[in-house]
């Protein structure tokens, strides 16, 4: 959505001007090292360090956590995060590294933890100095998240944690983890509790992290093993047994459907001079114009044209639906649009990347490492990676269950 779509309040208008002014002078420029497509794939410490520096400067400028109160390190503003996000995207600044922290941990801590813990954790979370990870999934608890086996046992003022988490993005850099686990075996849902637990400081002392290799061959997520990790009771969020309720706050924000707007940047293209954006359907037009078959360009093939335009329409439909979401009289059920957004963009990106195979033809077989790969091989790579998005954060099948049940009111599937 372009900024011209919004009618700003006076506070927002003033803040927008501040953001624009700051961004004009303080854009971090090109990264000195190659960045992966998204923060969840970060593995190179140099790339992380550069991005953390950017996050800290954006935080110091007041553009991250704007809507959180000042006591917890926020900006104390109203509805300004969306403005900062628009301006950062407009300025094509790099993405922010502490995505799980800002998108999931921050709102969960803010709504469910005690005040001193908020004041202790949120400032360094928002500034990106401390990276966060999410310990929800386990070998036996994926879509069926409540089937947690990791167990926390009370020991005086402490808890002792044992268990096994998988697919934990960013754990290798994380200072903290948001952890869902079991405190009672008597009840599936009411036996769950929610903690924030130290990772980095506990490695070798209750925490072991092992990298898992992704479909692309890269590293990014991990498995995390807990062996008698000791955590203070003050790091428990909400009541013992209220873990499922707290997890719902995390998941709502993960799906872009929570009350707090997540700070988001990420408009910068990947490398110097590179114009490919695998998250913009119009990039497929450039690709089609550059790809020849039978001495004609793919852009002259009526079938390819139809497919490209279909995706451009879906992209515009998604943008306009986001615009409509902000106007209550034009939405039906209040969760109808917010719960759709994950499906809309993850499937759009996946289908765009798939179409690129048809546009590139034989050359789509070339890896990112091959100098002859069209568009640097980004499209086939994006296709592989796109399944991360349709699987993570609650699979799209599970998301369809949620929409069917909560919005349409259909009977609950298992």
């Amino acid at each position, binding site marked *: 959505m*372009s900024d*011209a*779509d*919004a*009618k700003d309040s006076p506070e927002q208008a003033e803040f927008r001007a501040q953001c624009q002014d700051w961004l004009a002078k303080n854009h971090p420029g090109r990264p000195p090292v190659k960045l992966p497509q998204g923060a969840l794939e970060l593995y190179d410490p140099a790339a992380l360090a550069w991005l953390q520096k950017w996050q800290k400067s954006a935080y110091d400028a007041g553009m991250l956590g704007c809507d959180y109160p000042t006591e917890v390190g926020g900006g104390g503003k109203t509805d300004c995060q969306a403005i900062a996000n628009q301006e950062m995207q407009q300025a094509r600044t790099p993405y922010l590294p502490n995505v799980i922290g800002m998108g999931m941990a921050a709102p969960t801590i803010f709504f469910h933890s005690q005040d001193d813990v908020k004041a202790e954790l949120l400032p360094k979370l928002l500034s990106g100095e401390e990276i966060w990870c999410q310990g929800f999934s386990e070998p036996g608890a994926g879509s069926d998240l409540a089937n947690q086996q990791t167990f926390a046992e009370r020991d005086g003022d402490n808890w002792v944690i044992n268990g096994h988490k998988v697919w934990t993005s960013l754990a290798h850099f994380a200072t903290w983890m948001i952890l869902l686990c079991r405190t009672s075996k008597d009840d599936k849902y009411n036996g769950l509790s929610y903690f924030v637990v130290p990772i980095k400081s506990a490695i070798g002392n209750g925490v072991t992290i092992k990298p898992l290799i992704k479909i692309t061959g890269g590293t990014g997520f991990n498995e995390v093993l807990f062996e008698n990790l000791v955590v203070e009771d003050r790091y428990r969020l909400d009541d013992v047994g209220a873990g499922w309720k707290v997890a719902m706050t995390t998941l709502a924000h993960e799906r872009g459907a929570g009350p707090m707007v997540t700070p988001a940047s990420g408009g910068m293209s990947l490398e110097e001079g590179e114009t490919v954006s695998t998250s913009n359907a*119009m990039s497929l*037009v450039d690709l*089609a*114009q550059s790809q020849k078959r039978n001495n*004609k*360009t793919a*852009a*002259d093939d*009526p079938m390819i*044209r*139809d497919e*490209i*335009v*279909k995706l*451009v*329409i*879906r992209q*515009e*439909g*998604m943008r*306009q*639906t986001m*615009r*409509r979401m*902000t*106007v209550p*009289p*034009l939405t039906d059920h209040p969760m*109808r*649009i917010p719960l*759709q957004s994950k*499906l*809309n963009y993850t499937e759009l990106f996946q289908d765009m990347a798939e179409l690129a195979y048809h546009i590139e033809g034989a050359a789509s077989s070339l890896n990112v490492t091959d100098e002859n790969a069209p568009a640097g091989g980004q499209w086939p790579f994006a296709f592989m990676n796109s399944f991360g998005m349709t699987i993570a954060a609650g699979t799209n*099948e599970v998301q*369809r*269950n949620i*929409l*069917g*049940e909560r*919005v*349409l*009111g*259909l*009977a*609950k*599937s298992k």
Partner: protein
Amino acid sequence: MTERPKNFGFSEDETMLRDSARKFFQDNCPVDKLHSLVAYDHDVNRSNDCNWDRDLWQQIVELGWTAVCIPEAAGGVGMPLVAAVALAEEAGKAAFPSPLLATFNATFVLNACKSDAATKALTEIAAGKATSLAVTNQQGSWEPADTDVSIDGGKLNGVSYYVQEARKADQFLVSATHADGVGLYLVDSNADGVEIVPDNIIDLTRDQAHIEFNNADAIELAAPGTGIDVINQALPAILCIVSADMVGAGEWLLQTTVEYAKTRVQFDHPLGFFQAVKHPLVNVMLDIDRAKSLTYNAACAVDTEPEAAEKFARMAKSQAGDMAVFSSSRAVQFHGGIGFTWECFVHLFFKRQMHNQVLYGDAKYQRAKLADMLIGDIA
């Protein structure tokens, strides 16, 4: 540049209008009443009937709904296109048989004519005359240059095809060729030399005909050589209006099918428990929401950003057209055997959607146009 409003231009007036239209159609055109009006028997030979409730239409005229987008100077309300879109969406949700959409389309063509004769015609619409476009040739071409009617010495000759709501309309806007190019003309439906020949159509909520002109007297609305431009100017609005009808009808199909999936039990579960039913219904919802957002966006562009209107309107029509087919097909399929019957109300909307999706160019046609705009012509 005018600002693009976040609310697409739906101010309080437009939302109030929409809410009262919703109530009006719920009260006056419930689906069982509609079924007994248009589907009272299934004799295929009666499909060229024209069944509608003239009294309801008269009430709509008196409420001023047909005049929402007519300028105040011509006796109208002077609201933006989103007002007509809101009404069309509600009419679509009720599959309401009336010349409302046809009259809106004619209004936008007349608004583009900018002639005294066109202003006079608008005044007549505001006073209650139902009006329809007669601008399509025998091949069903949606290109404004293609007409099988000619004009000479003020007399129309030839045939207009695929004229919507022909028997409900009091007058027609006819595109006709002249030595100097295509012009636009107004004829009265009762005039000498005008013969309405009804088509046998599938959609029971509509009426369609071809119209034969034999030396029919016509009033010039847009001079020869300007007609194509005028139609092109009105086209985005026309596409928005039919898209809005599809969005409304799509929502009826979705909600009706969801209700059925909540109540019908098989294998000890309501149908909606099964993901082979649940997930496609969610997909119908996603499709409707995209179509609805694109339609509002396009209507808003017509009102505030005319240079982008055609692009956005074609996007809306493409998405709404695909959605119309998908929402209809899933509704019939998920009703099972009953969905295959004449007795089940679903077919009224199914048939209206299939009729809608082809009007003014189906989804593929719109995308071919968009490809030329976004990618460039084929080398």
